[in-house]
């Protein structure tokens, strides 16, 4: 029983991380109709930057904030310089380009920081809560993870629904040409979208780094899980990304717990294929279902 509770709680915690990555992917997809396969590598870089700050200043929170700020800048720069040329091209070009960016970033990280994974500090205590005499695996750090992801998701939701900027971004995503006719600077909205997405990604990076350790390839499974979660929730749906992330986190937690961690990537693949075959628009299809 305790095992089940432990697996459920840890599933929620990793699910929150998947939700953050999924959110990043969904934001970019909605704005520019591109799946950013480099998202995992981008958040890896911002986490390395955080690590460097933490090591040189001794302050976790400074590193945390710098990671998010770096994400903001990084996302904007990538969109402006690399993505802008392929936004109007066939989708395959953007896929290959983001994969190329992924490859380059991983290699660059290896060159700068080496390929050996290193440790990364957690924001809060990693000792599990004691409930009724048993020590759970769920820790204060996990609580922080879940809460902050939910807060960021809520914040983004508020931005989109209640602000003028959010309205312009939605218009640019739904109907770019009409938006231009209404004076919306659509390309600027795309840049903002990528920047915000990168912040969500950077958040996921610092949250998950303590458990996966920090290395050039450490975040590959996170990207894939984030993608599966985004597809599960529906690539067009930010709330879907959050729910998809949590559901996937639970599912993979149970698989790892009862069948072994090696099978988790395979389970993610099975879930992905199942969703794509049975309900391609995801659980929360917004509007018309896209034919995949």
């Amino acid at each position, binding site marked *: 029983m305790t095992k089940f509770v432990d697996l459920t709680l840890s599933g929620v915690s990793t699910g929150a991380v998947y939700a953050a990555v999924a959110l990043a992917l969904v934001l970019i997809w909605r704005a520019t109709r591109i799946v950013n396969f480099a998202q995992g590598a981008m958040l890896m870089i911002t986490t390395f930057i955080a690590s460097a700050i933490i090591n040189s200043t001794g302050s976790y929170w400074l590193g945390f904030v710098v990671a998010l700020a770096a994400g903001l800048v990084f996302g904007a720069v990538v969109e402006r310089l690399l993505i802008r040329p392929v936004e109007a091209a066939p989708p395959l070009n953007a896929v290959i380009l983001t994969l*190329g960016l992924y490859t380059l970033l991983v290699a660059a990280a290896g060159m700068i920081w080496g390929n050996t994974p290193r440790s990364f500090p957690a924001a809060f205590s990693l000792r599990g809560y004691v409930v009724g005499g048993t020590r759970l695996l769920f820790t204060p750090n996990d609580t922080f993870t879940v809460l902050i992801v939910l807060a960021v998701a809520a914040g983004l939701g508020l931005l989109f629904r209640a602000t003028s900027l959010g309205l312009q971004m939605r218009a640019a995503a739904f109907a770019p040409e009409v938006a231009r006719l209404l004076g919306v600077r659509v390309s600027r909205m795309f840049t903002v979208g990528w920047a915000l997405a990168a912040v969500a990604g950077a958040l996921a990076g610092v949250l998950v780094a303590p458990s996966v350790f920090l290395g050039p390839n450490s975040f590959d499974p996170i990207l894939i899980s984030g993608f599966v979660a985004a597809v599960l929730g529906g690539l067009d749906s930010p709330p879907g990304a959050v729910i998809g992330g949590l559901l996937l986190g639970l599912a993979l937690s149970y698989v790892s717990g009862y069948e072994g961690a090696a099978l988790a990537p395979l389970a993610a693949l099975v879930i992905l294929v199942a969703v794509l075959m049975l309900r391609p628009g995801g659980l929360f299809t917004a509007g018309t279902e896209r034919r995949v």
Partner: protein
Amino acid sequence: MTAVTRARAMLHHSTLARSLAWVVLAAVVLVIASDVISSYDDLQLATGAFYFAVLAGLTVLAGQSGQISLGHGALMAVGAYTVALLIGNEGWALVPALAAAVVVTALVGVPVGVAASRLRGPYLAGATLAFAVGLPALADKFPSLLGGENGLTINPPTPPSFLGSSFPLERWEAWIAGAGAIIVLFALYNLSSGGVGRAWRAVRDDEIAASLCGLAVGPTQAMAFTVSAACAGLAGGLLAVVLQLAQPGAFPLQLSLSLLTGVVLGGLGSLVGALWGALLLTMLPNWTNDLAHSFSLSTQVSANLPLAIYGVVLIAAMILWPSGIQGGVRALIRRLRRPAPAGVSQPTGST
């Protein structure tokens, strides 16, 4: 008609004749080249050959069938492990083991291909990416059979006795791999020039129009995938023979990405382009190593340099040069033959 004119006419009209001519030419080049170059270069030749085998299948899949796959590294693993198990554990001979690798990987390719045929663009890329990361994990799940992280080893292939006792091992490996590459070339050349290839390209260009012409879209695409999987299986099997090893570490995600770079650089859909790609994948690690030595770069840098270059190539290609080397060559040839016509773009919507 003289014999020469008849031969010329036959070459012009018959794909089969043309491809046989290429096969003979390639075989001759292989035999002569492998004799002339050093043992080390023979090993490089073998490596280039199996890269060509998988790249040829992948480029046909991507270019002619319009499907992108990031899972071909994992498919190579299937072929490699099949050969390692059959030769190492079961004592099979070389050719049957390689044939089995082709068949097994093609069989694995069938369900993947069926699933892939229903996916487009980024969804297909993401699914094959998940496949590439998920499949090698099986090696850890069945450590006794598949050897876990260390993988399986096999004995080097012995050259047949009629070649003489001093026939170098590396040269024999070059012959084996070269033969595999030539077979792949022959098969794909005929397929893509014939009705099958036309069906692939019709479906790629306009699915609705193709299905209205009676082409079954799903099965056509699944078949293209299976064929490319078979090529990957052969390539993996050849890799196992040349390296005498099959282990998870040899088939990371990076392999699939380097394969992608190879086909992008060579030009999607072009068999000649696959040759360029194979050249790149084989030679680049050597070149970067030499570069690292002359500039005294640390191993940290030199080990990651090929991948960094692949990344730059992919990015630059998509921004500057979407049709790769072969596309660039084709465009150049077109422009040399006649002046470039003014671009004609389609009018959008109503006037």
